[in-house]
């Protein structure tokens, strides 16, 4: 599948109708999601035929993208039952098979090294401080090979240090900088749309 095809497909993923502020349920847009997965597969071979986990999967965009790129198996984990129900509907729409687990990332019930690749778009940690770090710690715990994640570019130094020093990553690299086109989803967003610079990271174990 070509990048443009993947991006156009992902435009059909149904997003949250009423996102939950406390969980920072920002949608992962088709532009960013398609580039993230395409790079993971084309540059590193981390998706096709691999076991992939989408942590904090929300409505399932990244997991569906992995399935469309022929991941061997995809599991989505989210704390929010409404998000998981929507993600299941999206999977049916796309005719892809994903398993889902309702769980909190701080007490992730997944065992050691079963999953090859983790893909995630974690909360930026602006509503609940440290939420982004909680995701990163969990991801590096369960991933056997690599973690792909999005973080605000402004937190680059901090992420790099935490991943290697605190969470056991062997390497931590920014693959590219993307513009996160955040629609004004919540009342506290004053501007109609806001571009945020985010880094696409690849961490290895």
């Amino acid at each position, binding site marked *: 599948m070509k990048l443009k095809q993947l991006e156009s497909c992902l435009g059909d993923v149904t997003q949250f109708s009423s996102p939950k502020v406390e969980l920072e349920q920002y949608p992962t847009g088709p532009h960013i999601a398609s580039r993230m997965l395409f790079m993971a597969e084309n540059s590193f071979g981390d998706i096709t*035929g*691999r*076991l992939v986990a989408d942590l904090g999967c929300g409505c399932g965009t990244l997991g569906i993208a992995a399935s469309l790129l022929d991941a*061997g*198996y995809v*599991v989505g984990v989210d*704390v929010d*039952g409404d998000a*998981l*129900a929507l993600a*299941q509907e999206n999977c049916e729409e796309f005719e892809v*098979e994903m*398993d*889902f*687990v*309702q*769980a*909190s990332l*701080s*007490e*992730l*019930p*997944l*065992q050691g*090294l*079963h*999953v090859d690749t983790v893909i995630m778009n974690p909360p930026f940690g602006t509503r609940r401080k440290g939420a982004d770090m909680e995701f990163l710690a969990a991801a590096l715990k369960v991933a*056997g090979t690599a973690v792909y994640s999005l973080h605000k570019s402004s937190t680059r130094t901090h992420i790099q240090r935490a991943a290697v020093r605190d969470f056991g990553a062997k390497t931590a690299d920014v693959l590219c900088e993307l513009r996160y086109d955040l629609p004004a989803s919540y009342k506290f967003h004053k501007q109609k749309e806001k571009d945020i610079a985010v880094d696409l990271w690849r961490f290895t174990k």
Partner: protein
Amino acid sequence: MRLLTHNMLACNIKGVTKGFPLAIEVTKLETKESEMNPDFLRHIYPKLDWKALHDAAHTLGLNDIPEQVEPAMLEDEDFLQKFHHALLEVHLEEGALICPETNRRFPVTKGVPNMLLNEDEV
């Protein structure tokens, strides 16, 4: 939820040391055919806890998963088909997963296990 997922789920209640494998309580199963990928099965095989898969398959009424596997069997089409079926085609739609140490019950509803913990379990 398929048995591949079961093979990586553990009870995470604070203080629990033997939270794997979770016992399975079956209310409703569904079988959905999917294309077999032998390379993926060979890739996943060394990562699996085979005894947990064998026991779980047995609980689901899948009695043709052998207790022990030799790597040579991964070249056998007939075995791979059974392996694929047990691991990736049978879905636990309704039921529960039960912690082997505490007997805590995690319900499975519409195919999704709810592994959320209560405040006093964290």
